[in-house]
């Protein structure tokens, strides 16, 4: 099902949680709402689920205006951060419950629930209570319960944040597999950029209630719309040094020429941001950085440098060896290097 959000505004008293938010989500896609806490992503999800109604704007599911339609009439499945399983019911009863409310005959709902349990791999523990399951298993049951009534839209609210690191990776792959197998349009809320990058068709990145960028994960990484997007995505985080544009050259704080060229923004203060993998070793380069320390990562190593008073990191071939305090000539690749306005974060390059 296609979802269209038109100029959504949500205010709580004086506080604007979501500000003029517009987006179109294609049918069958997994879209992640990503952002730091307090960015309005959960508020957005609650408006999609009908738990909250927007102050302004419209929500369309396909061609239907569902802005003020109550939750149960929207045909959505919802998975909560704390799973929200009914502790007194068995796994099977939990999965059956949405169908029980819909008054589906008992034999049919058990059949459907069992099929769904198979899909999420909990079919061997149907008679257990949620308290007897691990976090990952509880999450699987919660997903099965959300999917059993065949919703048009599946909403997941930080579903992995209560799991440990290893289970998180396993479950996010499971969520993607289940989503691809059922083909259900899915909106996934998270604050973890790695999680978002790894499973989404598209990512919506939000900050303080405002949509920053809505793109494919790789595009978001390669072509950030502004400084915030560049800062938010990527591990290790993007390197960022203060600079000034002079005669089309980006000059660092210590007066050295970065070698990056930018037309039309002379005398403006900017951020020069570059990905760690965009740093090149150029012995003859005018731009010098002082090695601080090196961590070996296997096939490559990551070295921290002092560049014009800021600590930056670069990936290098493991055959290269820099000693602490050594002056190293560096340069940049064509990709993964950006210039942003110092104040507004607007992207110039």
């Amino acid at each position: 099902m296609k979802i269209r959000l038109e100029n959504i505004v949500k205010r709580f008293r004086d506080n604007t949680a979501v500000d003029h938010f517009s987006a179109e989500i294609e049918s069958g896609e997994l879209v992640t709402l990503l952002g730091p806490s307090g960015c309005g992503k959960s508020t957005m999800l609650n408006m999609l689920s009908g738990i909250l109604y927007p102050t302004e704007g419209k929500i369309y599911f396909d061609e239907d205006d569902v802005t003020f339609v109550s939750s149960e009439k929207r045909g959505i499945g919802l998975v909560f951060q704390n799973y929200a399983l009914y502790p007194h019911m068995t796994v099977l009863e939990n999965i059956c419950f949405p169908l029980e409310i819909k008054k589906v005959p008992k034999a049919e709902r058990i059949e459907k629930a069992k099929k769904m349990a198979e899909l999420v791999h909990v079919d061997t523990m149907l008679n257990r209570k949620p308290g007897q399951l691990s976090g990952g298993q509880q999450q699987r049951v919660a997903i099965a319960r959300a999917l059993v009534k065949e919703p048009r839209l599946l909403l997941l609210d930080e579903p992995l944040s209560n799991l440990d690191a290893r289970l998180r990776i396993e479950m996010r792959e499971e969520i993607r597999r289940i989503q691809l197998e059922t083909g259900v349009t899915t909106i996934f809320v998270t604050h973890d950029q790695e999680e978002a990058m790894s499973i989404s068709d598209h990512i919506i990145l939000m900050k303080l209630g405002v949509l920053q960028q809505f793109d494919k994960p790789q595009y978001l990484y390669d072509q950030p719309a502004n400084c915030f997007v560049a800062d938010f995505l990527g591990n290790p985080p993007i390197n960022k040094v203060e600079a000034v544009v002079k005669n089309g050259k980006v000059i660092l704080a210590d007066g050295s020429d970065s070698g990056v060229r930018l037309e039309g923004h002379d005398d403006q203060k900017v951020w020069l941001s570059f990905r760690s993998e965009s740093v090149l070793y150029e012995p003859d380069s005018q731009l010098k950085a002082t090695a601080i320390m090196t961590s070996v990562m296997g096939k490559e190593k990551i070295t921290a440098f002092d560049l014009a008073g800021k600590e930056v990191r670069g990936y290098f071939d493991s055959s290269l060896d820099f000693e602490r305090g050594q002056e190293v000539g560096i340069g940049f690749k064509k990709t993964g290097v950006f210039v942003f306005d110092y104040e507004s974060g607007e992207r110039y390059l």
Partner: protein
Amino acid sequence: MAKTRSVNNEEAQVNKEPFSFGRLLMYVVLIIGAVIMIFPFYWMITGAFKSKIEVNLMPPTLFPQNPLNFENFIYAFQTAPFGKYFVNSLLALIGCITTCSFTTILAAFAFSRLRFPGRELIFSLLLSLMMVPYEMIIITNYRTIVQWGLHDKIWALILPFMSSIFYTYILKGFFDSVPDSLYQAAKVDGCSDWKYLWRVMVPMAKSSLATIILLNSIATWNSFLWPMIATNSKDVRTLPFGLYAFMTEGGQRNERMMAAATIVVLPMIIIFLFARKYIISGMSRGGIKG
């Protein structure tokens, strides 16, 4: 000693706790407490099987000489209409518990989950009513009962106790502890408030409800003041009046008194034994994961 204990602390807890004076003292105090609590019950029950001579024996016998001596029970049943009283007590008990539990569940849910204007104010007002002493309410209750023509009827024993602010308060506390997401999950699936209450909240509150029902049972079963005021005839009076009768009509025959008291107390002990499992699990309950 102290050093090795701190090192092996975890092992020590899993394996046998080493002997310590503190633990011994703890057990001694607990055993003394248990004896103080249990002995009167034991004395009452064994006393009911003793003869007139034996019960006054010095030094007293700890165990009745003839444990199959049911004479006192037979006498007790002949003296006071225990059968009739028992039925009345049971009717009052069932009436109070079913109606009170029902209203308590509904009120607790409304105050905990539903949003309506003045909710907090109304609840505070209800709570403040708990400060009015029972003796004051008795007068107004009595007038109401008389005006409605229910004086000396079994309904007089039930009607004033069909709701309870205190039990509502306890149950609301439990309902408040249930995460909102459970309610939202059910709502998204199209579950009505009514169905959510009975299918999710009430089964989850089983142990709280068991506690409430037990407290309510004991209160109803033991109540004396209100039944004495609201009823006159033997036809509607309850078990505690059976004991009362022994003090006035039957004289102070301790062994008979004990037999009568055993008859009165026994049903409550049975109810407690059944509900015990839930009460303990209600107290040790950890809450919901997440």
